[in-house]
């Protein structure tokens, strides 16, 4: 049985976990192709027009899977991955909110993944899921161990500073094959000495790591600066960044973005921070504002880039160049250029 996994939303964080779990169940997990024009167009056509770009891309990826000989689609409901936090409501609404766009004849496999209920309940859910597919509980438990292992391995790779393409490529053969061509986090033509800046690109990984959705921003940024991502930040760094808050943030991603963003702002080695967001993102609307406040207090160059399906490359490049010029001048002359326009 071939199970399809759309390369969208939680793929960018939790794919190693699910890849490990399905390996434990001895089932083949196939990812959809890298985001491309057709994926985006299909997504725009089939998804609800009020939802956000990542969900539209998800719908596009589901369509892309239909031509790949996939028997069923795996779309877990990721409720929570750690205690005391949730993922975004739109992820809680999966898969029901995209049912209308699932191609006819494609089954949907789903389960509720909720770490707030404790590990025991999660394992029980995974066992039930496995039993539904004709596998045994033992295989599910085996899968869970492997899944945790793979996820930890992936995260530690990222903490070491390895690129997304390289770390994820270990679990996703498709990415490894294409990594050299499309996933270019380190531009080989880049003159290392020219990159005097270090810029942190904070935002959801489904935007920062999807090079079609972000209009190849990372490669462009990489030509002039060393790019840091939130995934490279160790948990202590994130905790440290959250200290000024009177109330803890209850979305896992927003928490990570907020904490890592604040830490990067406080980091002397980082010259500027770019917040990559997308139109209609609910959690970003709040974290983005709070990160901006911290940047303003500490006079760190800061810019918000908002993506949507109408984003044009020229507009993005202009803003990026202006930002980098401003940051460079600040660094070189060490004078007090205004950090926010």
């Amino acid at each position, binding site marked *: 049985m071939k199970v399809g996994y759309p390369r969208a939303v939680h793929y960018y964080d939790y794919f190693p976990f699910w890849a490990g779990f399905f390996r434990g169940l001895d089932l083949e997990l196939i990812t959809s192709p890298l985001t491309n024009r057709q994926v985006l167009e299909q997504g725009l056509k089939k998804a*609800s027009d*009020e*939802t956000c770009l990542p969900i539209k891309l998800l719908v596009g990826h589901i369509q892309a899977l239909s031509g790949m000989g996939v028997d069923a689609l795996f779309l877990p*409901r990721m*409720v929570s991955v750690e205690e*005391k*936090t*949730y*993922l*975004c*409501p*739109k992820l*809680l*609404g999966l898969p*029901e*909110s*995209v*049912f*209308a766009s699932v191609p006819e004849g494609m089954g949907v496999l789903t389960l*509720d993944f909720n770490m707030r209920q404790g590990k025991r309940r999660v394992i029980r859910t995974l066992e039930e899921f496995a039993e539904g597919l004709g596998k045994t509980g033992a295989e599910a438990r085996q899968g869970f161990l492997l899944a945790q292992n793979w996820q930890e391995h992936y995260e530690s790779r990222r903490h070491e500073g390895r690129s997304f393409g390289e770390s994820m490529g270990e679990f996703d053969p498709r990415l490894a094959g294409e990594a050299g061509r499309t996933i270019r986090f380190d531009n080989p033509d880049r003159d290392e000495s020219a990159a005097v800046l270090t810029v942190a690109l904070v935002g959801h990984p489904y935007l920062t790591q999807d090079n079609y959705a972000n209009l190849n921003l990372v490669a462009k940024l990489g030509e002039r600066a060393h790019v840091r991502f939130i995934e490279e930040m160790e948990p202590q760094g994130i905790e440290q960044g959250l200290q000024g*808050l*009177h*109330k*803890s*943030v*209850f*979305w896992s991603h927003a928490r990570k973005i907020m904490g890592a963003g604040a830490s990067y702002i406080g980091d002397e080695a980082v010259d500027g921070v770019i917040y990559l967001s997308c*139109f*209609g*993102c*609910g*959690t*970003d*609307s*709040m974290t*983005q*504002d*709070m990160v901006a*406040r911290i940047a303003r207090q500490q006079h760190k160059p800061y810019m918000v880039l908002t993506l949507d399906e109408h984003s044009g490359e020229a507009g993005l490049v202009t803003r990026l160049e202006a930002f980098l010029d401003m940051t460079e001048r600040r660094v070189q002359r060490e004078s007090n250029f205004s950090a926010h326009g």
Partner: protein
Amino acid sequence: MKVTFPHMGNAWIVIQALFETLNVDVAVPPPTSKGTLNLGTKLAPESSCLPLKINLGNYIEAAAKGADTIAITGGIGPCRFGYYGELERQILRDAGYSYEVVILEPPDGSLWGLAKRIRYLAGRHNSWTKILKAIRFAYRKSVALDRVEDLIHAARPRLAEPLAAEKLYSKAKQHLIEASEDKGLEEAVFWVQQSIKECQAPLRGEKPLRVGVVGEIYTILDPFSSLDVEQQLGNLGVEVNRSIYLSSWVGQHVFQGLAQGYHPLRDYPRLAKPYLPHFVGGHGQETVGAAVQFAREGADGIIQLLPLGCMPEIVASSVLPRIQADYRIPIMTLTVDEHSGRAGVQTRLEAFVDLLERRRIRTLTREDVLNVARE
């Protein structure tokens, strides 16, 4: 210390009553207006949801009345409202307002922490018995308000004079504001019932159309934010039923289900199950459940209200088309934000009500057609 709080429809009547019973100095923000919204929009993040913008406007206007402490409820997500308190604190601080923000929730699940916050607001001179008594009375007031509101919804399409219902409503609210014990609450509700009976127009032919209003709580409860959708529907001759009332929200959100309010929310998750089996934060699942309930009860149509970008309601709205197909009931989604105009909303409501009226006359006879033509 002078306490203020954000507006949400009639909630101020209840909150004011609560604080005044406890002899806490309170500044009710002036009624929300276009000016309030403009003030809030300037400070709020651009893509934050509408209620946040209105809240901020309320605080700024209350600051002019001398308020220095904000009381707001919280939450642990995943709806954005749960984080309003902290974000609003930061925004107001940076804008130069010296507000203390007290979020009424158990911080990290600690009831002791909640008790301390209540104690902080209520001051030393109130005993716990008095505080609990005040809370209970305020709750009963919210139930009475909901009953009155429901009666007004029924009255609007039935009273001969269009403005009669509004006059009745504001008078009833005045009675409820003044009521300081249970007897007064009962009398106000009874008075509204009697008044409606007296000036009810004889029904012409059919019963009025019935539309269920579901969706995001703030836009349902706060007529300013929805540009008076319920009143506009009433004026079009429609009886409005809504999915969620103030007291049910208080019962569920503040009392954690210990009280159920005027119209309990507890059935909704079960009804929503075939379409959305998991909560999605806010009242997304309740919206779906309520839509199912209205459809089963034979409502003529359903309107979903939400502020632009509301995450739980977007999930709900992508599920609603399946209910529309299964129950053959028209469902319209109405999104509002600070740029919404009254005329735009009115046009959409009129078109929707027209559609519902046509559906009633499913099989047209020759005479029906002539009648429509004559009208």
